[in-house]
């Protein structure tokens, strides 16, 4: 749809330029009809020089206008993408998930636990689908008895097997648990580039290059960590980070226990 309309406008612009060139040719034709065609070499040289003098500005103008048109079209496409993402996040994800959060707090016992499991799955599906990384994978690591294990995941094939613990030799686990405790987030553009914050190094054989991890909590209750990763470096940006923060808070609101 976007391309079709752009092509239509581009051809209209070309039409204007052709009309301009046609007007020049028509002017020349009228001159030839009135005064006759050039008879000498000098006359023809004059015609050629006149043609070049008309064609060069037309060519420069057409290139400039086409470039401007292209820039406008890129800006329009970007605006459409941004607006579409906003609609997706707010209308198609946050609204239905907020409704499930409400239902979690209306339910009790086994039904509540089922809805909580469902909520975790919805959040990872939304996170993986909304974040820009190609073949992204989102995981909710549930914090229970001081350890974090994958409770829900969605996206790229390989299921997560990592368990984050507080063992002295589990540096990554310790740092992940600290991230949850301090209600922090981390965005890593490339796990193979330069210096990384402590504990964010990938495990051996990891299939991801970039990731975002966000603490899931509500008030003082720490509930786990929501993460999204992708096999490409620089797969995520600020917008993805903000989507993840919102998803983590929605999840926290649904998982929190009443004091």
């Amino acid at each position, binding site marked *: *749809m*976007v391309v079709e*309309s752009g092509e239509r406008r581009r051809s209209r612009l070309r039409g204007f330029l052709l009309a301009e060139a046609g007007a020049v040719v028509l002017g020349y034709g009228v001159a030839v009809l009135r005064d006759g065609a050039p008879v000498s070499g000098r006359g023809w040289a004059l015609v050629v020089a006149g043609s070049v003098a008309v064609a060069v500005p037309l060519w420069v103008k057409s290139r400039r206008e086409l470039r401007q048109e292209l820039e406008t079209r890129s800006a*329009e496409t970007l*605006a*459409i*993408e*941004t*607006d*579409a*993402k*906003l*609609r*997706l996040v707010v*209308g*198609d994800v946050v*609204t*239905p*998930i907020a*409704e*499930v959060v409400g239902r979690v707090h209306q339910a009790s016992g086994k039904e509540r636990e089922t809805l909580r499991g*469902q909520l975790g799955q*919805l959040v990872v*599906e*939304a996170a993986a*689908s909304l974040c820009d990384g190609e073949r992204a994978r989102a995981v909710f690591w549930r914090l229970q008895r001081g350890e974090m294990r994958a409770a829900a995941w*969605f996206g790229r094939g390989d299921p997560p097997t990592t368990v984050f613990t507080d063992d002295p030799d589990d540096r990554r686990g310790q740092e992940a648990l600290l991230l949850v405790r301090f209600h922090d987030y981390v965005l890593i553009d490339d796990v193979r580039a330069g210096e990384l914050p402590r504990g964010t190094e990938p495990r051996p054989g990891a299939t991801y290059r970039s990731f975002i991890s966000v603490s899931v909590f509500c008030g003082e209750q720490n509930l786990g960590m929501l993460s999204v990763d992708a096999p490409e470096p620089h797969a995520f940006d600020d917008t993805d980070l903000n989507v993840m923060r919102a998803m983590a808070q929605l999840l926290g609101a649904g998982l929190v226990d009443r004091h």
Partner: protein
Amino acid sequence: MMRGQVVPEEARAWTAGLLLATDYFAHARREAVAKASAAIRGRLHRTRRASSPDRETSR
């Protein structure tokens, strides 16, 4: 005038596990792009019309 459901049927089907996330998001993305496209073009059109000189009064 606009009237509709706060949580549409497709979204309810997704949250209830009756619709696959991949199908839901593929459909939602298509709809969002179509609506965003119409909205942005409409806004651009109105902006262009507002910023161009009024032919009626300039004569």
